[in-house]
C-alpha cells in the first residue's frame, strides 16, 4: 500500500516536471516581454509557430538541432512582427497578440497540409530527429537505494534535454532580470519608460530585445511540444498552453521563482487530472475532470480579484511609448 502510494507520487512528480517544462519556458518568455511593458498574449501563437517549424524542419532534415533552430527563428520572427506593430507603430498590444495567435492557428495547418499531405500534421519523427530521454550519471548506481533511487531515476533523471534547459532558464532569467544592466533597463522600461528615455537609453531597442528574448524562450517551448514531448506537429497542439503560461506569469506576479511555482502547480493539477480520470477520491467522491482542468484559470481570476494575494503588474504595461518630439 505504502509502496503503491510512493510509486504513484513519484510518477505524478515526474509527470509534473514534464508538463511544467513548456509552461516555464513560455512564461519566462512572457516575463521578458511584460516586464518591458509589452503585453504578450501571443505566447500561444509563438509556441505553435515554433512547434510547427521545429517539427517540419526536423522531419525534412532529420536533425533535431536544425529543427530547434528553425523553431526559435520562426518564433523570434513573430515576436519581431509583434514589436513592429506595437513598439514601432504603437498598435494595440492585445490586438496584435490575438492577430498573431489566430493567424498562426490557421497558417500552421495550411502549410502543414500543403507540404506534407497528412491532414495538417507533420510526418512522425524518427528517434534521432527528436529529443530523447537523458539518463543522468548515477541513475543506475543509485537505483537500488530505497527512496532516493526511484526519486532520482524518475523525477530528476530521464527527461529530455529541453526539460533541463527549462530548469536552467529560471535562474538564468532571474539573474538577467535582477542582476544585469540589461535587466535593470528592462524593468525600468516597463515601469517608467519616460525616465529611461531621459537617461539616454532607447525604449524601443530595450523592448525589442525583450521581445526577442520572449521569442527565443517560446521557440524552445514550442520545440519541446513537437520534437520532445510528441514526435510530430499536430494541429492546435499548444491547446491553450500559451494562455496557461500567461496565467502562470500573472499568478507568479511577473517574478521568475513564483512563476516557476505557478507552472509546477498548474502542471501538477494536469498530471492529477490525467491520473484520476474518474477514480473516486476519499470524502469527495469523483471530481469532474473538467473542474480540475479549470482550476488554473479559476485561481488566476481569484488572484487578479485580490482573493489570494495581489497581482501588481508592471506600471507601463500595455501603454505604447511615444517619444516626445
Amino acid at each position, binding site marked *: 500500500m505504502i509502496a503503491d502510494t510512493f510509486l504513484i507520487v513519484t510518477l505524478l512528480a515526474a509527470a509534473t516536471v514534464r508538463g511544467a517544462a513548456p509552461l516555464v519556458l513560455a512564461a519566462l518568455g512572457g516575463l521578458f516581454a511584460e516586464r518591458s511593458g509589452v503585453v504578450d498574449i501571443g505566447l500561444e501563437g509563438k509556441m505553435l509557430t515554433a512547434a510547427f517549424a521545429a517539427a517540419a524542419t526536423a522531419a525534412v532534415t532529420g536533425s533535431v538541432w536544425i529543427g530547434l533552430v528553425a523553431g526559435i527563428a520562426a518564433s523570434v520572427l513573430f515576436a519581431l512582427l509583434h514589436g513592429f506593430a506595437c513598439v514601432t507603430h504603437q498598435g494595440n498590444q492585445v490586438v496584435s497578440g*490575438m492577430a498573431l495567435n489566430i493567424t498562426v492557428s490557421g497558417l500552421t495547418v495550411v502549410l502543414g497540409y500543403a507540404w506534407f499531405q497528412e491532414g495538417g500534421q507533420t510526418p512522425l519523427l524518427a528517434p534521432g530527429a527528436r529529443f530523447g530521454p537523458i539518463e543522468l550519471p548515477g541513475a543506475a548506481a543509485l537505483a537500488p537505494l530505497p527512496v532516493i533511487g526511484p526519486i532520482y531515476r524518475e523525477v530528476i533523471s530521464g527527461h529530455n534535454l529541453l526539460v533541463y534547459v527549462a530548469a536552467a532558464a529560471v535562474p538564468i532569467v532571474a539573474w538577467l532580470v535582477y542582476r544585469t544592466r540589461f535587466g535593470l533597463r528592462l524593468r525600468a522600461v516597463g515601469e517608467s519608460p519616460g525616465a529611461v528615455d531621459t537617461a539616454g537609453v532607447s525604449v524601443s531597442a530595450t523592448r525589442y530585445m525583450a521581445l526577442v528574448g520572449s521569442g527565443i524562450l517560446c521557440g524552445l517551448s514550442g520545440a519541446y511540444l513537437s520534437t520532445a514531448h510528441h514526435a510530430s506537429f499536430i494541429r492546435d497542439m499548444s491547446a491553450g498552453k500559451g494562455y496557461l503560461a500567461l496565467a502562470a506569469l500573472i499568478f507568479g506576479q511577473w517574478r521568475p521563482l513564483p512563476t516557476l511555482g505557478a507552472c509546477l502547480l498548474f502542471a501538477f493539477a494536469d498530471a492529477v487530472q490525467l491520473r484520476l480520470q474518474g477514480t473516486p477520491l476519499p470524502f469527495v467522491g469523483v471530481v469532474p475532470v473538467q473542474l480540475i482542468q479549470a482550476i488554473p484559470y479559476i485561481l488566476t481570476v481569484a488572484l487578479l480579484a485580490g482573493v489570494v494575494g495581489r497581482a501588481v503588474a508592471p506600471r507601463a504595461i500595455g501603454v505604447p511609448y511615444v517619444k516626445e518630439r
Partner: protein
Amino acid sequence: MSPSSTRLRLDWVAPVLLPAVNLTVALLLSAVVVLLIGESPGRALRTLASGAFGDAESIGYTLYYASNFVFTGLAVAVAFHCGLFNIGAEGQAYIGGLGVALFCLGAGSWPTVLVVPVAIVVAAVGGAAWAFVPAWLQAHRGSHVVITTIMFNFIASSLMTYLLVNVLIKPGQQSPETREFAPSTWLPQLHDVVRALGWEIGRSPLNLAFVFSLLAGALVWFYLWHTRWGYELRAFGLNATAAVYGGIPPAATVIAAMAISGALAGLMSLNEVMGVQHRLLLNMPGGAGFVGIAVALMGRNHPLGIVVAAVLFGALYQGGSELSFDMPKLTRDMVVVIQGLIILVCGALEHALQAPIEALFRPARAE
C-alpha cells in the same frame, strides 16, 4: 485652409478608404500564403466569391454565417467604445447558448410566438451573466478584463464540456450533445417566411436570427449615439479621467458596457442553437467570438461597418468551404489565416497605414 474643410475631405477616408486599403493589404498577404503552397491566388479569389455569392442558396449561407458575426462584432465593439477589450465573446456566446438550450428543452409545449421573445431574453441574460463577473472585477478590483475574459473562456469551455458529457447528453448516445428541441421552439427559416409572402428563395440555414442581428445593430447605434448612457459609455472610453470628473459613474459604466457586450454575444446562440442546430453541441460558438474581434476592427466599431464586415466574413466562411472543395490544398484553415491577417492589419497596424494615407489626402497647409 481651415480645419473644418480638412476634416470634410477626410470624412470618407477614415470610414471607407482605410478599411478598403487594409482589407486589400490583408488579402495581398493572404495571396502570398496561397502562392507559397503553390496555388493561384486569382483562382482562389474567384472560387471564394462564386462560392459565397454565386446563387441564392450560397448567399443564404453567407448571411447565415454573417448573423453570428454581426452579434459578436457588435459585442466586441460596444466594449471597445468603453475602452474595454472583451476577448470573452466566445465564452459568453457559449453560456448564452446554454440558457437558450435549457429553455428550449423545457418549453416544448409553448407556442413559437411566446418562445422567441423569451429565448431572446434568456440568450442575452446568459451572455451578460458570463460577462458580469469580469466586468465587476474590472470595475471594483481593477482586474484587467482582457485576462479575466480569456480565463472565463476556458472556464466556460470546461463547464460546458462537463454539462454536455455528464448532464445534458441525450441518454444512450455517444456524442456529447443535447436531444433535439421540439419543432415549435425552432426559429423560422427565412425561406419559409419568404414563401409565406409569396416569394421563393433558395433553401439555406438562414433564419430569423439574421433579422434580429440587423435590429440589434440598429439598437446598438441608437444606444451608443442617441442616449445618455451611450454618451457616458463613449465618453468613459475616450477619456476615463475626464468622464469621471464630468460626473459619469465609472463602475456602473464599465459593468453596463460589459453586460451589453456579453448579451450581444449571447444572442449569437439564437442563430446557431435555435435557428440551425436545434440542439446544443460541443463548442457551439465555433470561434465566432474571435471573428467578432476582426469584424469590429474592420467595421471601425460602427454598426453599419460591422454589418458590412460581418457579411464579408460570412462570405469568407461560406466561400472557404467551397474553396476547400474545389482546391483541396486550400483547407478552411486558410480562412482563419485571412481572419488573423485582417486583425493584424486593421487592428494592430492601423496607425501604420492611417498616417500616410491621411497625409495623402490632407491639402497642403498654407504656411
